[in-house]
């Protein structure tokens, strides 16, 4: 027997299985990052000073002394733009325009790589100045939270690249389900975006 509601929504819930699945998955992701944000608050409340890092005689009074706000702002713009393109990619499929979809999806993936490149530039300048996670609680939580977020970005790239590459065969056989998949991938991508939008002010600005 076929499993029902994989392609078309169940009438009384109004959604497909994959949609329910992704929302539940995102709920657990919220709890994951929620746990980390709570840890951040807990540690910061217990800290006598924040960021409180003295390195080779230089005292860093605020987070923006250590971290690069312009680079992070650039990354924020990149991620938001990629969230827009993935919606456009989905919308193109809804209007049956596959070639336009490929352009938008390609742009999304490109921008995700852009985000990671900027992030790695940030990391390597930290390391060059001897600013390692072991130096202070501030740096530790910075690296762990942004690192975990970066892993989520990589996950998104893998999924989106699969859907654009080998997974795209489905467009020929089952366009409705393929479109659903892009929508689900888009929901995940928005979540990755939103996490960053919380991370940016929390870690870089305040």
């Amino acid at each position, binding site marked *: *027997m*076929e*499993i*029902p*509601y994989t392609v078309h929504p*169940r009438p009384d*819930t109004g*959604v*497909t*299985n994959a949609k*329910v*699945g992704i929302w*539940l*998955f995102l*709920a*657990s*992701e919220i*709890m*994951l*990052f*929620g*746990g*980390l944000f*709570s*840890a951040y608050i*807990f*540690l910061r409340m*217990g*800290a006598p000073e924040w960021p*409180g890092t003295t390195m080779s005689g230089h005292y860093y009074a605020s987070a923006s002394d250590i971290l690069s706000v312009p680079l992070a702002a650039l990354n924020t713009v990149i991620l938001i733009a990629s969230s827009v393109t993935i919606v456009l990619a989905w919308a193109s499929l809804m209007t049956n325009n596959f070639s336009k979809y490929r352009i938008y999806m390609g742009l999304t993936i490109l921008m995700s790589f852009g985000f990671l490149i900027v992030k790695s530039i940030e990391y390597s300048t930290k390391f060059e100045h001897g600013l*390692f*996670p*072991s*130096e*202070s*609680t501030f740096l*530790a*939580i910075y*690296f*762990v939270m942004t690192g*975990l977020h970066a892993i989520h970005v990589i996950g998104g790239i893998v999924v989106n690249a699969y859907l654009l590459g080998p997974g795209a065969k489905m467009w020929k056989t089952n366009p409705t389900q393929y479109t659903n998949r892009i929508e689900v991938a888009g929901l995940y991508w928005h979540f990755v975006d939103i996490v960053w939008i919380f991370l940016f002010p929390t870690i870089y600005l305040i």
Partner: protein
Amino acid sequence: MTNTTEHDHHHELSFIRKWIFSTDHKVIGIQYGLTALFFLLFGFCLMLLMRWQLAYPGDPVPIIGWLFSDETMPGGVMLPEFYNQLGAMHGTIMVFLGVVPLAVGAFGNYIVPLQIGAPDMAFPKLNMASYWVYFIGGVVMLSSFLVPAGAAKAGWTSYPPLADIETMGQTMWLIGMFFLITSSLLGAVNFLTTIIQLRTEGMTYMRMPFFTWVQFVTAFLLLLAFPPLEAAAVLQLADRLIDTSFFLPSGLVVSGEILEVSGGGSPLLWQHLFWFLAHPEVYVLILPAMGIVCEIIANNTRKPLWGYKLMVQSLVFLGVMSFVVWAHHMFITGMGTGLSTFFQITTMIISVPSVVILSGMFLSLWGASIRFTTPMLFALAFLPMFGIGGLTGLPLGLAPTDIPLHDTMYIIGHFHYIVAPGTIMALMAGIYYWFPKVTGRYMNDILGKIHFWGTLIFMNGIFMPMFIQGLAGVSRRLYDGGQTYEFASEVIKYNEFMSQSAFLLAIFQLPFIVNFFWSIWKGKKVDDDNPWKATTLEWSATPTPPLAHGNFETTPVVYRGPYEYSVPGEESDYLPQNQP
């Protein structure tokens, strides 16, 4: 359905696709069940070694002592470090690799889709992945015994700073936990989607059998409570591998020397994140047991479950409340009276729905002519055992009484009454009850009854004296059971009795093991598809044993609630849910 038969003819699955990398929820349920039973036995054996040491500290372990290495038991005499490994791994294995995979992975997987009339789980491939990720987690945990200095020693709670500065086994523990958490999350998404989306026509939420309800709430707990532990595990792994100090305070002294770390971390942060998971986790351990017991009680009393609706409401309320009681495990940390009051109040509130559910089960027995089958005996024993566990929990929920009892043998008694004589008894009940469904054969009744009485008596023999010891002030996690403490001298003598009970308990599991394997091939065959004359769909709408592919010959339609037994004016004493 011609469709299905055609399907059957076209692809006969290879052995590997059918039994190893299967996507059929029934096969995955069996895989989970066998693996979990193996781990339960393994965790049980670790405990037997510990019990020997507690009863006869310093005496070489007889018969098998020589098998162990010099780093663990030179000359058969247990080293303290090895005792700690056994303790930590006993807890971890029993909770995360034994009870939860059996209660949720095995019973949930096998029964839920059948009970709601679904063809399979919503995401069969994900289901397979969650089993294999669990399996890898188990292998990682087992292999941690082989790394230098052995497995984790910091308890199943892995409290830092100790866990942060532990040997390599702790890193293995964390990696193992990542796999187990991932597996649970995949499983939870799958269960929830299945129950929300794949209920068959007429199967409204308030017609779902209590067992399915319980799995529904349990899946929510797993979904939302595990990620914070995952976050905590990431932080602890960072502390261990890249020298951060999330859980290490400034100026920590280890073996007389100040630790060279940046400091500024907080051991309490771990405790909060850990218990935010682990309190809901204790409900993950107990709720499926309640679900199993309710099914069996309704079936063997031939009466509707008392207060089904009230019980469902209590269950949901309990699920929600379980997220706001966690710090009752931390009264001793000096959290301040405001917080402590909050958690004392929530703990008292959460005990209300637990009592409602337990009372519902007791009231269901009222005026029934009970069929004392083996599964029913186990289910009946669950009630007082869980009752003792719950009642002894109340003093722990109030700070003034908890502070002297915290970290004593009393705690061990309390939660074991819930998870061992409680949950394990219920899981056994479930095995005897659904065995005919899975294999088409009954388990032997005489062996079952021997297993039951031996288990009931000796479980109590082990755990009851723990309350006395704990009230006298004996701490938990003592390698010599408290020999060196003068105040313990009066109660320490029970250790020998308790350990002998444990060894006898082990002997009384042999009839079960023999029965289990013997009955698979030689047990008495069931005479029809619904041997217990049950109302729920897994019995009334599918062949016994079930079809190899797909679940139902025709998609069942549900017309009535789950427990229509002995309906007045009806000829038959049960009305299956799919009977118009």
